[in-house]
């Protein structure tokens, strides 16, 4: 089917090849690092090799003597240029402790990779070579690495300017938790570790900043997810008036949250452009990025569930230790807090207590990483449900079904106080079980157990939900977040009938240009090909809240729809005027305005656009324009859900785990473009499985990052991942006109517990009840060894008792 065959009203719901791909796959991409500006200088950053130290001397004079070096600065040299430290927009408590975060440290460095000086040269290599001639003296301070030790009395401090490593303790209690637990017949309690991860977008970060030329403004190109937020925050941090700063996110190669931030290097490039009057470029190397770009996860989760005799849940307790790292970046403290709404997941209960200790350490800051707070919560609850099923002696699906919200119970206000508008867990689960051959695999599992097969089969379940569409602004306000969660779109009707859609979202791989074109094509009745979507440049898309938190379609796509509806409403008035009919008598369908009952009295959207451009004849009380703006603030989050099933083969001799099959049935509401949705699910699964089996950022006791490059940080490739069987159920969201729910993070959130549940399930007969993530061969083998030595000890204790 070619695009031309598609009637203009039938774009939504069909797979359209992505408009973005031709230039991406033919190498015509405009990455920030591809930019070459006349007279451009290159910055190299001198970084702390120590996790924690006092900086006693920074002497850049040696670097200044190197060939091609134009300037070099210490933190002290540029201290007057910052109007403030790098921002944290989410002060979760009033007394939150936040280390001062200058773009270049002056007297204390707080993690390996912290910036101590910058060298500017006329080539990237020259700048890099000259960094070796910057003389920095450090007086080592004890490194704070372990979160729990950090909170113990007498612990060294991660920041000597503060008197505690506790950044905050945040609590939310719903229902009577004591009552739920006190007389509970069954309580299941576990500690889970959500290890630290490194986002690893394929395009490293890069920044170019040009000083004013014909306009009075600075222009910054950055590999960022958030050009609008960046503009505002940099204006505040660097004392450049907001209207004199234009930020452009050109093609951006992935982010996963790591580019949802305001980074030292962005502030540095702006200040250097100001100070030197030349365009400045910085591009991180992969190993530099591993130290200087935010990490994700890193939580210790103590969780327990109280059950009634009939296996219904009475309540849940959650106590988290969340590693903030050395600084609070843009939304660092808010990430674990988002989980507060998600630990109860799809289950009904009468009480939930959530306590989160945000802990400062001498490690790279953590912040949003694909899923941000929800994967951690989902992991804990879905692991815990499997553990509970095992302890209670029931089938894990049976326990889930006993407790989940039934489809007829929606809308449902959860114990955490948010309203799930829609969902159908029964339907998604039934479909997943069938695709998976659940009963067949259970039978095979039993056979292998009976045969003592060295390769055991495990089945893992994850019936998850999440909250997307960040976010209702008032809710964000109630959580002390520094901004709203609305989104903006505008539509420009061009005289020739073509359309420009301007969006405040900032895609970096998601395909918004295609999906937004589909929405606008249907809403306006204009061919898909006749629509251009512009984004990611504050001079073009002047208003926006950017892209993260699976919000773009749910909030930004919604804004596009509303903006288009406004165009149609105006055009209808013009059409009625031109057709000399009453507005109420004009119907709009698939791009045509038709006067009811007069087959010959009609006109098209394109003709109306031309007529209003000419403006010779239009209604008196109207401006001669069809263009529109829409800023929408969502009334609620959206709640995608689904059932994921994973079968793993675990080699009990070596500890090696292989995923044998994986089924993902997702309900993301109405689907705009099935292929894009499937792509998001695939990528999400890969990243969730990566956490389960492969990736971990490891620090040693001195705070050195041991997984400092892709040689030690195992990002899986296609050969490491199974074939994914994906399918959907479609329960439209009721809180936006498109019925969409968001899909960017679903795969990541759902898959990690599905995989680990499968690994544990395979090993359950050996006495294994948990495996540390990543479930690397070593970690799996350790779990088997520990279980077998525990059972030997138990057996010999039993022998002793009998003797």
């Amino acid at each position, binding site marked *: 089917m070619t695009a031309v065959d598609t009637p203009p009203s039938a774009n939504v719901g069909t797979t359209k090849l992505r408009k973005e791909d031709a230039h991406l796959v033919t190498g015509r991409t405009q990455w920030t690092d591809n930019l070459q500006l006349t007279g451009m200088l290159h910055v190299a950053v001198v970084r702390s090799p120590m996790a924690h130290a006092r900086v006693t001397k920074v002497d850049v004079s040696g670097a200044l003597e190197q060939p091609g070096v134009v300037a070099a600065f210490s933190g002290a040299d540029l201290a007057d240029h910052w109007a403030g430290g790098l921002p944290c927009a989410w002060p979760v408590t009033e007394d939150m402790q936040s280390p001062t975060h200058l773009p270049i440290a002056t007297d204390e460095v707080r993690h390996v990779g912290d910036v101590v000086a910058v060298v500017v040269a006329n080539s990237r290599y020259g700048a890099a070579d000259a960094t070796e001639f910057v003389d920095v003296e450090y007086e080592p301070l004890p490194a704070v690495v372990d979160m729990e030790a950090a909170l113990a009395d007498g612990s060294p401090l991660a920041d000597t300017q503060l008197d505690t490593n506790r950044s905050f303790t945040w609590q939310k209690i719903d229902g009577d938790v004591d009552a739920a637990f006190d007389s509970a017949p069954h309580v299941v309690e576990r500690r889970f570790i959500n290890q630290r991860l490194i986002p690893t977008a394929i395009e490293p970060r890069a920044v170019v900043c040009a000083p004013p030329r014909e306009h009075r403004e600075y222009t910054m190109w950055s590999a960022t997810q958030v050009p609008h937020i960046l503009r505002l925050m940099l204006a505040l941090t660097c004392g450049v008036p907001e209207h004199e700063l234009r930020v452009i996110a050109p093609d951006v190669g992935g982010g996963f949250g790591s580019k949802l931030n305001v980074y030292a290097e962005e502030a540095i490039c702006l200040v250097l452009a100001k100070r030197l009057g030349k365009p400045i470029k910085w591009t991180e190397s992969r190993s530099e990025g591993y130290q200087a770009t935010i990490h994700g996860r890193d939580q210790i989760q103590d969780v327990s569930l109280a059950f009634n005799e009939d296996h219904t849940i009475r309540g849940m307790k959650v106590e988290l230790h969340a590693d903030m790292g050395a600084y609070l970046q843009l939304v660092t403290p808010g990430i674990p807090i988002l989980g507060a709404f998600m630990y109860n997941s799809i289950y009904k209960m009468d009480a939930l207590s959530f306590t989160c200790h945000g802990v400062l350490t001498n490690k790279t800051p953590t912040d949003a990483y694909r899923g941000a707070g929800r994967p951690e919560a989902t992991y804990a609850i879905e692991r815990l449900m499997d553990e509970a099923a095992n302890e209670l002696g029931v089938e894990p699906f049976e326990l889930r079904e006993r407790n989940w919200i039934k489809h007829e119970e929606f809308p449902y206000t959860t114990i955490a106080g948010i309203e799930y508008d829609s969902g159908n867990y029964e339907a998604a689960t039934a479909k997943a079980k069938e695709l998976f051959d659940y009963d067949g695999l259970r039978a095979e599992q039993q056979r292998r157990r009976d045969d003592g097969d060295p390769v055991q089969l495990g089945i893992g379940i994850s019936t998850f939900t999440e909250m997307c569409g960040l976010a209702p602004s008032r809710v964000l306000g109630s959580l002390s977040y520094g901004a709203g969660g609305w989104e903006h779109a505008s539509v420009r009707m061009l005289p020739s009938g073509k359309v420009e859609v301007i969006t405040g979202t900032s895609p970096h791989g998601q395909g918004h240009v295609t999906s937004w074109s589909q929405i606008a094509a249907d809403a306006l009745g204009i061919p898909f090909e006749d629509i251009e979507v512009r984004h990611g440049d504050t001079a073009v898309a002047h208003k926006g809240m950017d892209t993260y938190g699976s919000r773009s379609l749910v909030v930004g796509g919604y804004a596009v729809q509303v903006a288009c509806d406004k165009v149609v409403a105006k055009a209808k008035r013009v059409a009625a005027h031109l057709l000399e009919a009453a507005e109420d008598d004009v119907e709009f369908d698939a791009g045509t305005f038709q006067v009811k009952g007069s087959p010959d009295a009609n006109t098209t959207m394109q003709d109306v656009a031309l007529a209003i451009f000419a403006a010779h004849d239009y209604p008196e009380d109207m401006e001669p324009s069809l263009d529109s703006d829409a800023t929408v603030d969502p009334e609620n989050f959206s709640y995608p859900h689904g059932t994921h099933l994973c079968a793993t083969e675990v080699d009990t001799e070596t500890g090696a785990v292989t995923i044998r099959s994986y089924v993902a049935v997702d309900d993301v509401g109405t689907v705009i473009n099935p292929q894009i949705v499937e792509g998001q699910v695939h990528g999400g699964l890969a990243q969730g499985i990566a956490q389960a089996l492969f990736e971990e950022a490891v620090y040693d006791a001195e705070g050195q990052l041991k997984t400092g490059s892709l040689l030690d940080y195992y990002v899986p490739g296609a050969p*490491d991942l199974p074939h994914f069987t994906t399918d959907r159920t479609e329960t439209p969201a009721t809180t936006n006109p498109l019925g969409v729910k968001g899909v960017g993070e679903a795969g990541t959130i759902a898959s990690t517990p599905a995989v680990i549940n499968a690994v544990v399930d395979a090993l359950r007969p050996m006495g294994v009840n948990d495996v540390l993530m990543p479930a690397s061969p070593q970690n799996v083998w350790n779990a088997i060894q520990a279980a077998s030595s525990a059972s030997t000890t138990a057996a010999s204790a039993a022998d002793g008792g009998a003797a």
Partner: protein
Amino acid sequence: MIPATFDYVRAGSVDEAVDALKQHGDEAKLLAGGHSLLPLMKLRFAAPEVLIDLGRVEQLRGVCDLGDGRLAIGSMTRHIDVMDDPLVREHCGVLADVTAKVGDPQVRHRGTIGGALAHGDAASDLPAVLAALEGTLVAQGPNGTREIAASDFFVDYLTTSLEDDELVTEVRVPKIVGPWGWHYEKFTRVAQAWAIVGVLAMVKRSNGSIEEARVGLTNMATVPVRASGVEQALAGHSPDAIADAAANAADGTNPSSDLSASAEYREHLARVLTRRALEAAAR
């Protein structure tokens, strides 16, 4: 990420390379495929002042039959060309099979057999094959050429018995004659990665029993190791002896502990993988 500055010399022949080595001494490094050297340079773990590129030395590429029961493989022969070479496939299939498990297609199209061996990396797959095959390397320096047995070539972690002014010109392996079977077990964290542990088993069968077994271990010490205890326990025995023999696979090894595996776990893996490799090779 950005290597320190260096000078670049392109050698047109082995003699030119030797002259350049003589001239620059230990300040120079030979550049073959660059797949081990450049990663070290970009992290500035290595900062040679001069790179002597062997890429244009045609005489170092290709495979020939020495006529004495051995094949000679030019040191600059890329992994892909070793794997696909008809002589190698016919007479030394084990080398082709293990080479096919090195890295990924990009690595195999750039990396060379000479570079892989001269680098002396314990985690590299090829040293264990050469050890099991009892192959040799031909080195050429200002004082002429010498042939070095695999067992004498690997000295320590990233250290070989090659002199600073010598280069490897050839790798010599025996043609495999008789009813040999072989199998390489490569245990990795992700599909395209270095071995946590690798075990090459070669088994010569006669009349249902094992006449001779050779076991080469990758990454179980700073140099490739032959599991001689296992080999001896199998010689002249039936394949039923494999499980017991493999239990000795870690004897005499000295594996390291790192993020992927503790030494103890590596020893365990060596025993399991040796058993599996032997069973597959004896099949």
